[in-house]
């Protein structure tokens, strides 16, 4: 049953992504409404899928690449829907949805079979650690998209290239505000993920921190975003600089998540 639901989610996200991209080219009220509704229904199905998977396997379904990427995609869509609902940032969807859809497709490319959980992962820490980490990644993904949009819009304004894209993209202030809000939510979530991971490591292996590649790179990620937040609050790192750091941070996340899990040995290795 779950594979059917998963295919439905892929279909709906695909359709919603298409609508958001079309909306970017041809804005129309009806299109925007339709895209929002379709995406919300897809999100509901995706939640259903995730809960069902939890009931089926008996553990938080964020243990293998299939589950992790699926949850990542779910979180990105959730964060975007929250922004759309709160700030009417519909155009953001034209950038975020392709990313969310790609993540979901990546998830689908990994085997989806429910496997018995390895003993080290059997812990109450799994839920808080993994959910925290992916929620943080999702907000940073949205910040990344807003950053790309900011750099485009800023370039258009500076170079006076006031074409169709310029007209469609939101104002710099809105994009910068999205960056800030993502940061304000994402950094505490990442802190929770790292702290809980450390406590979990203590109970599982007896040491809080062992400089495994994932730990190191998570710390790098944390420092990038902490530096950005600090810069924002004190010396006014905003706009272009904040956008670039959001993009850099996202690249570090990609490396932490994909590179470390798939290439380097360690606790998080999926090799």
């Amino acid at each position, binding site marked *: 049953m779950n594979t059917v639901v998963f295919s439905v989610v892929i279909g709906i996200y695909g359709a919603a992504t298409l609508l958001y991209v079309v909306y970017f080219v041809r804005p129309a009220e009806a299109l925007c409404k339709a895209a929002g509704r379709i995406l919300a229904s897809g999100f509901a199905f995706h939640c259903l899928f995730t809960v069902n998977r939890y009931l089926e396997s008996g553990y938080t379904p964020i243990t293998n690449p299939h589950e992790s990427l699926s949850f990542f995609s779910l979180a990105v869509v959730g964060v975007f829907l929250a922004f759309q609902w709160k700030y009417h940032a519909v155009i953001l969807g034209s950038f975020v949805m392709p990313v969310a859809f790609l993540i979901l497709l990546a998830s689908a490319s990994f085997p989806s079979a429910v496997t018995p959980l390895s003993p080290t992962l059997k812990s109450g820490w799994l839920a808080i650690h993994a959910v925290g980490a992916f929620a943080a990644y999702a907000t940073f993904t949205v910040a990344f998209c807003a950053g790309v949009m900011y750099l485009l819009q800023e370039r258009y304004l500076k170079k006076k290239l006031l074409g169709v894209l310029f007209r469609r993209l939101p104002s710099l202030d809105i994009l910068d505000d999205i960056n800030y809000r993502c940061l304000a939510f994402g950094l505490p979530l990442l802190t929770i993920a790292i702290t809980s991971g450390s406590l979990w490591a203590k109970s599982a292996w007896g040491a809080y921190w062992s400089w495994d590649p994932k730990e190191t790179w998570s710390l790098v990620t944390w420092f990038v975003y902490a530096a950005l937040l600090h810069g924002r609050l004190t*010396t*006014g*790192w*905003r706009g272009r600089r904040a956008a670039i750091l959001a993009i850099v941070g996202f690249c570090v996340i990609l490396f932490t998540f994909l590179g470390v899990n798939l290439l380097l040995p360690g606790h998080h290795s999926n090799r």
Partner: protein
Amino acid sequence: MNIIVVGLSHHTAPLEIREKLAFESNGIEAPLRELTSLPDISEGIIVSTCNRVEVYAVTRDIAAGMARIRRFLAERRRIPFSSLEPYLYGYHGENAVRHVFRVAASLDSLVVGEPQILGQIKSAYGYAAEYGASGLVLNRLLHKAFFVAKRIRTETRIASSAVSIAFAAVELAKKIFDDLSDKTVLLVGAGEMGELAARHFITAGVRGVMVANRTFERAERLAAELDGRPVRFEDLLDHLHKADIVLSTTGAPHFIIGTKDVAEVLRRRKQRPMFFIDIAVPRDVDPAVNELENVYLYNTDDLQGVVESNLEQRRMEAEKAEEIVADEAGRFLSWLSSLEVVPTIVALRSRFEEIVRSEVERTLSAWKGISPEHERRIDAMTSAMISKLLHTPISVLKHTGQGGRIDLYLDALRSLFDLSPEMQEVDKDNGGDGDE
């Protein structure tokens, strides 16, 4: 029943003439009553704005109706007819309908797409409706015009791009700041152009305005007018950090705001973005300021470029808008002619019945000894003849319905049988047909 338009606008008449002809809205009742009491005019609306004075009317006789309105305008506003006449234009039929639609949709405006005209037409219609000057046809025409204006606004981007430099500056500011309600404008130089631009920003809802000028008194005066705060020119750089938008318009021969000044100001502002609009010639702000992060500098030429690209885009959008106008005008005209179908049928039938009845009566009155039974039979026979004779023409009229030919048929019938159908006011209060 014809719709006619007589008037003048910025296209045909200079300001002096438009001023003389303008009607005041609070004294509009008397002219409206006079207009509709003219012999050939059954309905009328007077539209008077600073760019146009127009009368929309319904008449039986196009030429006579137009002539009456021309004379009405000249006499009412006490302008010699000969000096007014060359500026007046007149439209009837499809052109009149299209003209009303185009005006309401702001396609005929001085600044195409400006939104005020629709409100002005709505209030002109409001007065006409209030004083009973508009009726079935104009009610429908104006409701349709509002609908067309709305359709054009939603389906084309005719109204969405800026045309004047000041307006372009406001639009750009909205792309930088989004919300202008917590932003402050600093106007440097109290010239006319700067004042105009500052007023645009005030209309757009900025929080406050500061005015700096070499002669402080002039800054004070303009600041009072704009509800802002005057700033001494010598202290300009000390106040610069408080401004989000700087409008510079001085006659200074050299740059008055340099890169170092702005970099320093940005530090004080914690890098909050600034938008410099330099509409002074020669320029007031060092162009290198644009290279600084979080600073956007636009000069007159840049803004002119925005305006021109908007105009180009607007021309393309205007074509779409004209298609909508033509489409809706066609629909309105077929409604207008369908309005006359039923009365024409009624008039045609009664014309036949009238002739038959008088002939039958003449025959019967000279026919001695005819029995009531025979009289009844003759009546039945003549009624049947009328029905059969009229069956084909009536069904053709009913089924031709939409399209241009119905007008030909109606005109032909009216002149062949000398008919003057009374218009049926079946849906007087219902101006729309559900699509508004």
